[in-house]
């Protein structure tokens, strides 16, 4: 039998120390991603009013043969290279009091430098076309910072396989972000 590999490890203690509160995928022994993409679909509905691959701030790297899927969202890096790369930072890209990097879409010029500066592959910042399809805009997870219920992806995940790193006791290996710090 081959070694059992069920899902990407969401974070190591060292990694967790470098990020702010962010979306994590739980260990499959706690809950296994069903591949329903509800997180991505509800993200689009919540932020844009519609669904579609370019309209979501969270994406699922589908294991189309293994059926083991990996949830990808902005990890809210403490050193925020995306923010640093933004030529309109402070206006198009901002950092709130909790350290969440977020985008003010109306000021985004769609240069894509933030997406390119992201240290992850694929980039956790997506580029979408705006409504008249003439301009690109950057979109990234802001943890639904203005939503009282918290992130929509977490609220509507039917398998409860994702959560916030600060609240989680079930990230892979049972690592708590607090312990990591």
């Amino acid at each position, binding site marked *: 039998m081959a070694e059992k590999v069920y899902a990407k490890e969401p974070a190591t203690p060292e990694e967790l120390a470098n990020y702010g509160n962010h979306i994590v995928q739980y260990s499959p022994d706690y809950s296994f991603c069903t591949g329903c993409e509800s997180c991505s679909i509800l993200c689009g509905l919540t932020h844009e009013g*519609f669904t579609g691959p370019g309209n979501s701030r969270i994406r699922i790297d589908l294991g189309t043969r293994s*059926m083991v899927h990996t949830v990808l969202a902005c990890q809210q890096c403490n050193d925020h290279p995306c923010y640093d790369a933004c030529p309109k930072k402070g206006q198009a890209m901002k950092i709130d009091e909790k350290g969440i990097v977020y985008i003010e879409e109306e000021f985004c010029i769609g240069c894509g430098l933030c997406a390119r500066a992201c240290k992850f592959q694929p980039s956790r910042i997506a580029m979408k076309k705006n409504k008249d399809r003439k301009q690109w805009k950057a979109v990234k997870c802001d943890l639904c910072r203005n939503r009282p219920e918290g992130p929509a992806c977490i609220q509507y995940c039917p398998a409860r396989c994702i959560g916030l790193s600060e609240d989680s006791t079930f990230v892979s290996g049972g690592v708590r972000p607090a312990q990591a710090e």
Partner: protein
Amino acid sequence: MPNFSISDILDNPSNKQKLYGYCGRIARINLTTGEVSCLDTYQYVPKYVGGRTLIHRIFWDEVPAGTGAFDEGNKFIYMNGPTTGTGIPAGGRSAACAIGPSVLPEQFTFGNIGGWFATELKYAGYDGFIIEGKSDTPVYIKIEDDKIDILPADDLWGMRVHQTQAALEEKYGHDFKSMVIGPAGENLVRIASITTSNDCAFAKGGFGAVWGSKKLKAVTVRGTGMVAPADIEKVKTLRMTMNNPSMRPSPILHLDKLGVPGGEFDVQYDRGNVACSPGCNQRCNALLFNGVSAFEDQPVNHIEKCVSASTFSYKTDIPAPVGMFWPTKQNYCAPCKLLGRDFPAPDFTDPDFEAQGKVILPDVYDLWKPDYERGTIVNDLCNEYGIDKWEIDVWLQTWLGMGKKEGLFDGMDLGTGREVDVEDTQFIRTFIDNLVYRKGYYGNLFAEGMARAIREMGYDKYSDTIYHGRHSQMLNGQRLDIPVSLEGGWGQSVHWQGRGYEGSVEKPTWLAACLIRMLSTRDANTVEHFHSEFEYHAEAMADPYHSPNLIRAIINVQNNAEIKDSVMSCEWQSPDPWWPTMEAEMYAAATGYPMTAEELHEAACRSKLLMRAILIRNHGRNRKMEIEQVWRTMCIPDSWGEVADWQQWNEMVDLIYEARDWDLETGWPYREAYEKVGLKDVADEMEKLGYLPKRPAQRWHDYGEPPFVKFQEYQKQEAAQG
């Protein structure tokens, strides 16, 4: 272009009713000419809803009588639904139709499927596509937003299902989603499927062979557009209320038992529960980790559904509680929650708890011993070659098992070079290999499907020979006769029909299942599972042939099947017997059109009538033809040793015909039935063709003699011999 904003949808001049939820166009792809064009969806909706209802309308309009499954004129019509991609649970499924080569005789048939394909197609801007014509050389269709290309598939031709999926993904990237056929479809094996990357399949009907006949290996799609539901808050509410999702973690389970209750055996395996398509709030499919592969050295993960269970072990059939078909409100649980092992605790305060929880003990067959590895290989062969598991797991294997014990295969190897032995992995593997590649006499024969192969070998002997190893647990182990071939009508295997696989059910349930099958062209019980509220159970048990509420329930099941395949939901989520407006609410949330449950049921009647008209016009369907299809099944003893009564069965058929306003003698709908649901044009054409009956002065009542059934003659012969 696909839609990129809500204004793109609402400003479309064709969208006069300002409907959300649709893309607005249906692609027409002609493989003979290479031409690609688009139909306007809005000319059909909301009247034809989407999905299967829309499919029926287009098929009626475009595919004439006389068209065969492998003819150039056969069309594969595929539709997603208005809920697809909206986040409404189960909307990620889709439907298709064609003349089905596995149906005996060849007829119009239909199917539905999960996977990520339907949603991606909607992001590309299409509510569906019509594939017509035939290519001379292998091709695949690549859809990327507006761009639809018909490309050479020489390098894909010959590949298995997952090889093809992987090759397309490697070539175009992870964002492309594909439906493909395997070698079975290429070789025009009549039971060939079309398969998504997560092993969802159009398996019934043999659509894979339709693609193979068109030299179409795959359709791959990527979309960058959007889908907008009209009422996002309602979508969110539906997500939290449809079948009451418990929203609880779903860990990988480390299990040590497999098999049906009472027939479990020891095996170590890990199981995850997965959804079949985007947006679902349930997880009914089983992901079995690290199973042996039929082709690769390394173990692979397998997605399996209920039918797969039988192939691991077949000592007994499947046990079923009465409440599975006759639930009470207090203890109703959607099947997806049962399959996903996510069911709520029983409500013991239910006064009918004990009655609806009573389990019908399944018949004992002793056909093959538990063997997880053998079963996994058989299932993997079906997945990878792209063939219908029902045909292999339920029909071929039981036939081999029963036939061997009755000595039918003495001195035969059925082209395998080995003794016929269903428990021998190498035998079954060689048999399936031969079938898929049409090797030798028997490979070529069984590539035509069980129904045709058995008729060619000699129907009386190879179908109706009595198997003497069936024992009823409901009759304290009494032996009951059953023929070696579990055929249930229209050339498809039995299913919840009172005998054979999933056969131990009460008479009202199997009468309903047989009636639903009779009126269809396929194993209807994978798309129209019978169920009725428990409060009508006693009435149905008292006189199952004449129960008004049983007839009402059958019509509800049929109509709801049309609805869920049109609005787009799934067999397990829909219907909820105690939420009759659910699908109308789903439709309204998706489109903004204030659909009522009554209007949706009228659309379902329209859809069903269009299919009825297609069957009559294209295939000469009538009462005699359909009754003969299911009668043989009902002549086999059920788990209590009972068979159907010819006179009373005909009276039951009368009741459903009358409820539908169909002529009793012919089974053809009257003009009023068509006109009542806005199908005057269909009635006019049927009249021109001579298929519009006149109401007789007196109620027709001439059932004649029941069709001859060889199995019954064998029973009489054995009884005479003592």
